């Protein structure tokens, strides 16, 4: 009797877990303009002004699960021919929950050859990272990715 109870409970939890996963995926993908903390929104507004930011062209590579938030490898790239007529002017990377919303601004010229930069960043919490690219024709393109951080960067650590 007891054994049967456990198996149904386990099965129920398994079903509930998979339902939660299935439920959360569309919620993320269907809300690109999801409400974000005010600091992130204002930092993005400082860069783009009132321009329309479209989704696409930008690729943000971050590990989905980060063990140590003190040094997280990040690569951001934009698909662009990088010719004098058509190139990426800059890429701006933002976060949601660090003490400051900015991670980095990267400026390119037509001589850059490839609109791609790699670096290592700090993440204070599990959060969303947003990358926005400004193209030479004045358009803005963006992408975002969610990162789970198990050990946060110690921003308020006592030393």
């Amino acid at each position, binding site marked *: 009797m007891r054994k049967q109870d456990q198996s149904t409970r386990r099965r129920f939890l398994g079903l509930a877990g998979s339902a939660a996963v299935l439920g959360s995926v569309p919620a993320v993908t269907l809300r690109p303009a999801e409400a974000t903390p005010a600091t992130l929104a204002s930092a993005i507004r400082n860069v783009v002004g009132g321009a329309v930011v479209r989704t696409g062209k930008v690729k943000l590579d971050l590990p989905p699960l980060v063990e140590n938030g003190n040094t997280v490898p990040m690569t951001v790239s934009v698909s662009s021919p990088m010719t004098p007529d058509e190139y990426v002017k800059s890429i701006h990377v933002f976060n949601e929950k660090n003490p400051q919303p900015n991670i980095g601004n990267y*400026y390119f010229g037509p001589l850059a050859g490839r609109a791609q930069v790699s*670096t290592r960043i700090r993440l204070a919490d599990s959060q969303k990272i947003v990358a926005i690219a400004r193209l030479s024709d004045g358009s803005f393109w963006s992408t975002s990715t969610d990162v789970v951080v198990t050990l946060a960067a110690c921003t308020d650590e006592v030393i």
Partner: protein
Amino acid sequence: MPSALINVPRHAKRGEIIEIKTLMSHIMETGYRHTANGDVVPRDIITSFSCRFNGAEIFRADLFPAVAANPFITFFTVANDSGKFEFEWIGDKGFAETASASITVE
């Protein structure tokens, strides 16, 4: 010990896209940590990095406290001519470092 590590290919074919890797030794103190007495440890970060080739800027970056210690930055450029890359890091408390690397384009 040199504080900067630069990795640029020595030779390249004309028109080839090459990768440049840079590493600068720096604590990148965020300004959000405090001592046991409660005093805030003042911010001490590199705020700006730039790379010029034969005097023309090819890449520039603004850095923030969210950049990890010992900032590692890699980027690309087109090898059109032989010449010299000059790198510059500028930061808080008067921090300023430069480095350079040469390339031969065939």
